[in-house]
C-alpha cells in the first residue's frame, strides 16, 4: 500500500484519506463499522476551551446534492476532549488532526497549546472558518490580516505543525492562503462549508433554527476544486483538500487540482463505509490511470512540464 503513503508536515500518512472534522465525531461511532487504523488520519470534531451545546435544532437541512448544517461547534470542551476522546483514540495507530476553534484569539491559543501536547495529536487544524458561530468565528476566516494573526499566535504555542482551514466565503481565496502562509502555517485544509439557507415552504421560515448553515457535499465540489487549483499554484505549503468527496475518482480530481491529501465529510453520513471503500479503490484507479504513486497526481492540472497523454478519443 506504500503507493498511497503521503508525508506531510507532522503527518506520516499510510494513505491520503481521512474523515473531515465534524463528520466523524471522535471516531467512536465509526469504529463499529471498521478498524480506524486503516485511515490515513482522523480530523476530530472542533474543540473549544469550554464545552458548547451548539445551536437549537433543526441543525441540518437538505439541498440538491448537498446539505446544510448549523451544529454550532457542539463539543465537550478541551479538557474532556483530551481526557476522554483523545485518550480513547490512543488505542488506534492513526494520527489525529485536532480541529481548533474559538471565538477569540485566546481561545485558539489555549486549545492549541494544550491539545497539541496530546501524544496522538500530530497536527492541528485551525478552524477559522466555521460559518455557524455568531461571535468572531467567521471574521478570522475572511480578513487576511486577522487570519495571519491568529495563525501566528497559534504557531507560537503549538507543539505540532499547524494547518489552517480556509473558508470559501471570500472574494479572494489566494490572499487568505498567502496570509496564513505568511503567518507560519505548515499547511492548508480547504474548503470549509459555503454559507447557505433553505426555507420551509409551509411556514415561510428558515428550516435551520440558526437560519443559515454551512453547505457541504457534492454540490460544493467544483468550488473546492477551483480554490485548491488557484491556491496550490500560489503557496508552497501542502493542501489537504475536501468538499464533496465521495469516491476514489473524486480523490484523484482533488489531487489533480493541487491537493496532497484529502478529507471526506458529508459522504460518511450517506455511507459509513465510504473511507475504507475509497482507500480500497484507489490503487485500482491508479493502475487504470497509469500512476505508480498517488503523489504523482498532485497539481497535474497546472504542472506544465510533464508529458500528459491525452486519452481523448
Amino acid at each position: 500500500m506504500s503507493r498511497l503513503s503521503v508525508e506531510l508536515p507532522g503527518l506520516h500518512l499510510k494513505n491520503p484519506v481521512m474523515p473531515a472534522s465534524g463528520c466523524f465525531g471522535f471516531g467512536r461511532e465509526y469504529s463499529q463499522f471498521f478498524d480506524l487504523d486503516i485511515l490515513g488520519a482522523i480530523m476530530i470534531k472542533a474543540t473549544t476551551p469550554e464545552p458548547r451545546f451548539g445551536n437549537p435544532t433543526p441543525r441540518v437541512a437538505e439541498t440538491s446534492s448537498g446539505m446544510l448544517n448549523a451544529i454550532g461547534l457542539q463539543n465537550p470542551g478541551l479538557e474532556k476532549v483530551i481526557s476522554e476522546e483523545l485518550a480513547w483514540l490512543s488505542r488506534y495507530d492513526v494520527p489525529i488532526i485536532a480541529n481548533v476553534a474559538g471565538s477569540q484569539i485566546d481561545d485558539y491559543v489555549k486549545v492549541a497549546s494544550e491539545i497539541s501536547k496530546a501524544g496522538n495529536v500530530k497536527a492541528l487544524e485551525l478552524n477559522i472558518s466555521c460559518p455557524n458561530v455568531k461571535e468572531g468565528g467567521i471574521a478570522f476566516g475572511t480578513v487576511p490580516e486577522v487570519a495571519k494573526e491568529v495563525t501566528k499566535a497559534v504557531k507560537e504555542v503549538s507543539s505540532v505543525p499547524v494547518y489552517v482551514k480556509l473558508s470559501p466565503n471570500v472574494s479572494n481565496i489566494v490572499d487568505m492562503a498567502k496570509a496564513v502562509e505568511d503567518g507560519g502555517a505548515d499547511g492548508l485544509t480547504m474548503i470549509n462549508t459555503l454559507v447557505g439557507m433553505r426555507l420551509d415552504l409551509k411556514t415561510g421560515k428558515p428550516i435551520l433554527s440558526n437560519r443559515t448553515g454551512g453547505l457541504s457535499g457534492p454540490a460544493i465540489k467544483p468550488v473546492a476544486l477551483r480554490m485548491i487549483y488557484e491556491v496550490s499554484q500560489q503557496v508552497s505549503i501542502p493542501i489537504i483538500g475536501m468538499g464533496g468527496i465521495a469516491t476514489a475518482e473524486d480523490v484523484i480530481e482533488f489531487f489533480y487540482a493541487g491537493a496532497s491529501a484529502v478529507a471526506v465529510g458529508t459522504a460518511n453520513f450517506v455511507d459509513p463505509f465510504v473511507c475504507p471503500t475509497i482507500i480500497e479503490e484507489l490503487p485500482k484507479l491508479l493502475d487504470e490511470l497509469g500512476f505508480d504513486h498517488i503523489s504523482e497526481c498532485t497539481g497535474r492540472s497546472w504542472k506544465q512540464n510533464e508529458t500528459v497523454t491525452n486519452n481523448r478519443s
Partner: protein
Amino acid sequence: MIKKERMKVLNHKELAPSIFELTLQGELVSEMNQPGQFVQVKTTEGTEPLLRRPISISSYNSSEKQFTMIYRAEGKGTTLLSQRKEAEAVDILGPLGNGFPVHEAKQGETALLVGGGVGVPPLYQLSQMLVAKGVTVIHVLGFQTKSAIFYEKEFSELGDTYIATVDGSYGTKGFVTTVIDNLEQEFATIFSCGPTPMLRALEAGYREKKLFLSLEERMGCGIGACFACVCHTGDDPTGFSYKKVCSDGPVFRAGEVVL
C-alpha cells in the same frame, strides 16, 4: 450491531393515499431485537437526494429475515422510495437507536399505546410484543382524516383500538388526548410516538404515569456522529448535557429530555 445492506423488496403497497407499506428482506433483520428502532433508508441509487431518510421499523420477523416499515411519501426522498418495485434492492442502514422498553410493562398490566399519523407504525411491533408477554394493550391512534387511517384492523386484533381524526370524519373528532381524557380503562404505562405537539400534550397531561416518548428530529448521520439531532436533558435544560435522538433515543422516558 448496525449493518448496511442492500435489502430486497418483498412487498410494497399503498395502504392509504401516500402511505406506503414496504417489506424488505435481508440479514440485517437478525440484528433487530426491540420495537421502536429505526433504519436510515437511501431512497435512490444516486446522490440526489443526498441524505438517508429515518423510518421506523413497524414490525420484523427474524426467522423470515423480513421487516416492514410504513411511511408517508411526501418529499423528494420518500416519493422516490415509493417507486421501488418488488425484487429491487434498497440500501438500508440499521437497526438504529434504542426502542421502547417492553420490560417496563409487566404481565397482567395494561399499557396505553398512543400514536399520531406516521408515528403509529412502530407501535405495531410493540403491541405484538406486549400482548405476547401478557400485557393488555389499548391503542389510541390519531389521523388527519378518515382516508389517512391505516392498520386499524391489525391493531384491533391485539387490543381495544380508538381512532381520533382531526376533521371528525371517523372515530372521535379531535386529537388523541380527547380520546384519552375520556378513557374508562386504567393503565400504568404509556408508549407514544407522533408529532412533537402530541408528545408535549401527553407529557403535560400524564406526568404521573410511566410515559415513554419516541422523538423525531432532522438527522445527518443517524448513528450519533454528527450532532444534528441533539436535545437538552431534563435535568440540565439549558446546560451542556445532551442526548442524541438517533443513538440515545429515539425513545426517551418523559422528562429525560426537553421536548
